[in-house]
């Protein structure tokens, strides 16, 4: 059986590193009195991270002894893998969308993001894709710009 590092162990170690980094940064705050509150909360975070780390290590040892890790079926593993890939692609698309907003503005970025995301998520009806793309852009423009007087981002390229 393959051995995996428990996610809680990784998270608590990462958290301890973040706490150390922030603590070091807190020492650079110009007013000493302004350092106290964040330092106390960082100490609280560190204590919790250490407790979680110890608990997770103890639990792994216990699980190893009991050998009770449940095995998933191949089908469940495949479904899980497909689900994770879908999430990953969608997240990458959103990152591209956010970068796109900075470059070409919200209306053009949305006009590219919506059909791409819909196609990736298996919506193949061309009229649905066109309708949703135009509808979303129109809704953004009318609700946020016309009615709520929000200045929509135009992008650095324009």
């Amino acid at each position, binding site marked *: 059986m393959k051995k995996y590092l428990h996610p*809680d162990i990784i998270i608590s170690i990462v958290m301890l590193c973040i706490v150390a980094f*922030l603590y070091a940064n807190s020492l650079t*705050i*110009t007013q000493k009195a302004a350092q106290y509150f*964040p330092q106390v909360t*960082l100490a609280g975070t560190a204590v919790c991270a250490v407790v979680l780390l110890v608990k997770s290590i103890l639990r792994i040892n216990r699980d190893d002894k009991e050998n009770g890790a449940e095995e998933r079926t191949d089908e469940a593993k495949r479904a899980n893998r497909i689900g994770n890939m879908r*999430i990953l692609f969608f997240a990458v698309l959103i990152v591209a969308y956010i970068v796109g907003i900075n470059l070409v503005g919200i209306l053009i970025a949305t006009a590219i993001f919506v059909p791409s995301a819909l196609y990736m*998520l298996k919506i193949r009806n061309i009229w649905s894709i066109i309708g949703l793309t135009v509808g*979303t852009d129109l809704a953004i423009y009318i609700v946020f710009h016309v009615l709520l007087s929000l200045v929509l*981002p135009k992008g650095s390229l324009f």
Partner: protein
Amino acid sequence: MFELILTGIHNVFTLPNLGISLGGLLVGMVFGALPGFSAVMAVSVMIPFSYYLRPEGALLMLSGVYCGAIYGGSISAVLIGIPGTPASAPTAMEGIKFTRRGEGARGLAMATWASAFGGVASSVALLLGAPLLAIVALKVGPPEQMMIAIFGLTIVCTLSKGNVVKGLMVGFFFLTMSCVGLDPRFASARFTFGMYQLTSGLPLVPILIGLFSFPEVFGMLKDGLDSQFQGGKVGRVWPRFDDIRSTLWTSIKSALLGIGIGIVPAAGPDIASFVSYNSAKNKENHENEEMPNLDGLVAAETANNGVTGGSLIPLLTLGIPGSSVAALYLGAMYIHGLIPGPTLFTKYGPEVYTLLVGFLVINFALIFVGMFVCNFSSKILQIRRGVLATLIAVLAVMGAYAVRSNLMDIAIMFAAGILGYIMKSNNFPLSPVALSMLLGAMLEKTIYQSLSMTGYSILLIFQRPLTVVFALFVVASLAYPQIAKLISERRARK
């Protein structure tokens, strides 16, 4: 006073004033349902429109917008798990469970009922008890506010059932995150890393939008791409008598809690909904976290609408705006020549009592207008997940941007979304994030104010009776889950 109430009734039930009130309610609901648009924003956006109205009409419209926005947050919270306003975060936690089980209509109906119940109760308190309750509000100072903040934070422990260490870790870490920006006393930059965008702190609303929406979107995509609810129709949104009866006591308690918290300056609907949700969750011993907790949903919604009337009490009687919305009301009242304070009720009796009666009518109307809006909005559950995920992503992006028109907020929102997904996948509770971010600044500021007041002898704050009362609440909040657990174990043994 009775004569003034009759004048108020007469003024409210004129066609223009009734239309303005219901129109404001509808607009507020739309604002509240849009993630990123809080009640404060809704009221502030509508203030310019109030210039063209008579004083009583202006106050009625703003009241409609305020109540509608606080309620509207629950629509998106129940249907897609995105809290429209920070006060709807607990509603999102329970409401989405109803939707996942195909009971979205039930969740929406009870959220609407609870909002109307809390709103009506707070209107009655505003109408009848304003001068009396204002006496208590006058005695609330920094030590009491500090105790309220600590009381709010003790909820982290109980909201993290079974994951107390993880809950506390998240709570402490996000208390640190609430320090990002300028420190409240010396304006020293903390954790800004030289970025001017961070000097005003981490944006709360974009973080909450990301934290609560993207884990839902990703979870939705992981489960498949068909529609969320296979039954064809979501069903008619109307509350069941059994549900109302079983949650009546919770509604009454939460309404009282909401009114009480509303009166306290600086404690708003966000704190009320979390405190009330926590007390309702403690009541029921829920083993299965995926099962929706009707009491929790009702408690959160009743309390946050209970705040609406309560928050206007110190404003009208003392001229102290206890919340951001109350401050906007103050501005609107000054524009129309109404000066809040003890003389307001005698000098401008007809206008003030029109507002008080109108507040009650608006909250009665909320249940019917709310059901009408919900019957349309619940159709979104029949949409395919791919479409819904795409639209939620766009809505979340727009919601994050709309708060401060800042592109960086979109990136922060998405980062919070990724963090939320990682946290949720590893059984880290999300609610302490909201609590710590909401209460962190208030806690730090009031600690320093209390220390200054007492000459750095913090124990002196316990000479103040109200501080002692709030401190007892803190102790009770920490002890209650343990005592309840002991009692239930003893009962089980018998």
